[in-house]
């Protein structure tokens, strides 16, 4: 019911039956029409508000789905980024041998850590963890869990199985952090070459240290020049030799004679790279590259090459070895050498100190120093990638007098490392080119000529005779023409020669008609035995060891033996009869 009277505001007079509403918003009473209008506008307002809210929600949904969504999605999956550039599972490059077999690698692991301030039940957690990790005691875990710090490693580098076990305990305080561990699948085999890393995967020895930047900045495999099979054969023969001759140490290096790539390098005793905390420092000593020693008669190779190459000595020249040679304070004598005039060849075959000294004196100081420098025997081999490198010990040029010239001729008064000797030896026999040694295919090296090709050819012949007729007969391997030179020197300990202790060396190349590989074997302090007739000279220990190494590695290195057809057929026949 609508009445005109009601349109008037603040009208207190109402018709009978008229509906009267109390309006809180106005001063007085309102009629029905006004109320409807107010309701209508309020409803419209509420609809508007809801529409606005819906609009906001729609816009937001649109925004979230289409605009932010892409960004959020990216963030959500950022753990797996980048998309175009896949993440390699580890951050340190593998090291492989020359055939691509992995010899050092990082494996992804996890570290178990916690915030001790958040640990609620330390005793229970410690007990459970000590059950999962039996090597760590309950007390140790408890100490860690109750430490007053906000971060503590409970166990580093745990296995996936252990991680699953820890997870199954259900303690939210125990957290995992991705990590890596350096693993050496071949254990001791490349111990002195590879070195080791610390717990944070930083190199602390060997190639791991010297090439730390290369290994940690790129995940591309670092391919070494060493051969796994050859390395194994060399190490096994060295272990046998060390045991057989009761030696303190045995070392060997196999080198590609033309490229100076190191094919094998081993020094025993050695150690398992996967284990830590060795107390015996001796086992970590890489004698092959760090062991500076007086090599003895193997130096006669360089002395003879120098003499022939200088033109001052002809291969037919003879030297008086009938009596000892007095040089100042030194009296140079020979050991089991016929007292007669010796030719250059006989000097090497009988390893005459006297004749070698006479040869060197004829050549002179200046040429000798220049030649030894050229062969790299005066300097540390900086080019070699390994961290542990020895610096040769020698007299200064000023104090290099005639007695030094004479003693250097047969390898006394100068100390070098085995790697120095084999590199210089290779350059004498490979045609006369010196190339610095290397362990990787990534090195930049410069070669240089040190002797003429003709001198090199002559040296091959002379050193072959040493193996056929001289002190290296035990290395005259059937099928391979080996050439080499022995060396036995008194061992120097704390500046004094130790009586009865020898450093024996054997340096060889094969096959000598076209040399492919060079080998050096050093036996440190071999003991006399019945088998060696009481001798401790090189011919009784280093040489047979070298011979065994050559006969094992030559077939592996694809060096064809020089048997004629008849012998080959006989070998087939013998092999058949042996089997039956």
């Amino acid at each position, binding site marked *: 019911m609508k009445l005109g009277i009601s349109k008037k505001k603040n009208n207190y007079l109402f018709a009978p039956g008229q509906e009267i509403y109390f309006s809180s918003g106005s001063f007085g009473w309102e009629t029905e029409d006004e109320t409807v209008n107010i309701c209508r506008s309020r409803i419209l307002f509420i609809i508007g508000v809801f529409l606005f809210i819906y609009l906001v929600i729609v816009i937001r949904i649109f925004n979230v*789905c*289409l605009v932010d*969504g*892409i960004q959020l*999605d*990216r963030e959500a*999956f950022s753990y*797996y980024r980048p*998309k175009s550039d*896949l*993440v*390699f*599972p*580890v951050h340190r490059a*593998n090291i492989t041998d020359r055939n691509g*077999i*992995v*010899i050092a*690698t990082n*494996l*992804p692991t996890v570290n178990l850590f916690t915030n001790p301030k958040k640990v609620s039940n330390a005793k229970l957690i410690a007990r459970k963890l000590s059950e999962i990790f039996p090597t760590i005691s309950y007390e140790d875990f408890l100490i860690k869990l109750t430490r007053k710090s906000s971060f503590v490693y409970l166990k580093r580098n745990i296995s996936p199985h252990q991680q699953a076990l820890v997870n199954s305990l259900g303690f939210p305080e125990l957290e995992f952090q991705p990590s890596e561990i350096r*693993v050496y*699948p*071949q*254990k001791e*085999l490349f111990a002195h070459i590879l070195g080791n890393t610390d717990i944070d995967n930083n190199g602390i020895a060997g190639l791991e240290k010297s090439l730390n930047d290369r290994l940690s900045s790129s995940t591309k495999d670092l391919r070494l020049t060493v051969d*796994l*099979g050859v390395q*194994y*054969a060399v190490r096994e023969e060295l272990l046998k030799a060390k045991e057989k001759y009761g030696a303190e140490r045995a070392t060997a290096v196999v080198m590609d004679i033309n490229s100076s790539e190191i094919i094998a390098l081993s020094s025993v005793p050695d150690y398992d790279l996967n284990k830590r905390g060795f107390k015996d420092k001796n086992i970590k000593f890489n004698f092959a590259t760090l062991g500076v020693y007086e090599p003895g008669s193997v130096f006669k190779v360089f002395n003879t090459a120098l003499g022939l190459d200088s033109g001052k000595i002809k291969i037919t020249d003879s030297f008086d070895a009938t009596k000892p040679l007095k040089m100042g304070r030194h009296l140079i004598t020979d050991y089991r050498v016929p007292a007669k005039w010796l030719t250059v060849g006989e000097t090497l075959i009988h390893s005459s100190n006297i004749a070698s000294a006479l040869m060197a004196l004829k050549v002179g100081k200046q040429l000798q120093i220049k030649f030894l420098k050229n062969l790299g025997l005066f300097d540390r081999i900086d080019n070699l990638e390994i961290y542990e490198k020895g610096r040769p010990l020698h007299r200064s040029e000023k104090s290099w007098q005639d007695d030094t010239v004479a003693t250097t001729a047969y390898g006394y008064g100068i100390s070098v490392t085995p790697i120095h000797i084999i590199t210089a030896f290779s350059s004498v026999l490979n045609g006369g080119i010196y190339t610095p040694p290397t362990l990787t295919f990534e090195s930049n090296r410069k070669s240089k000529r040190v002797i003429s090709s003709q001198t090199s050819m002559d040296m091959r012949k002379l050193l072959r005779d040493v193996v056929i007729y001289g002190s290296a007969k035990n290395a005259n*391997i*059937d*099928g*391979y023409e080996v050439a080499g030179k022995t060396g036995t020197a008194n061992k120097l300990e704390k500046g004094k020669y130790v009586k009865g202790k020898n450093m024996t060396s054997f340096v060889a190349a094969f096959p000598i008609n076209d040399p492919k590989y060079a080998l050096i074997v050093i036996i440190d302090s071999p003991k006399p035995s019945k088998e060696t007739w009481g001798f401790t000279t090189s011919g009784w220990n280093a040489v047979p060891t070298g011979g065994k190494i050559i*006969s*094992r590695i*030559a*077939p*592996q290195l694809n060096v*064809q*033996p020089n*048997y004629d*057809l*008849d*012998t*080959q*057929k*006989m*070998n*087939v*026949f*013998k*092999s*058949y*009869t042996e089997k039956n």
Partner: protein
Amino acid sequence: MSNVKTAITILWFLFTIVIGSYYFVLTNDVQNLEKELAQINRDIENDIRDIHILEADWSELNNPERLKVLAGKYISLDFIKPEQIINYSALPLEGEVFENPTMFAKNTRGLRQLANSER
């Protein structure tokens, strides 16, 4: 005129809806593809990690010491000796040595001498 205007407005409205829907579907597809790509990448990374671990395992399995023991135990193989390397011309015909060694020896001087000395 007003009808034309209305039609154009409706057309524009429909066009906007179509474009919007298409854009919505396309974006959704891209998101799904990105997720798929991320999953594929995760799978590849997992495979790379597995291969990486297997390479280490393979190296350990190829440890010469282990192979030596296994070869000695199961196939009686030993290290190759220099005399086992022969030229092609020294290779016997199939069964020549094993069935008739004398025939094989017949044309070989060294073997003939060996056979004579044994007689």
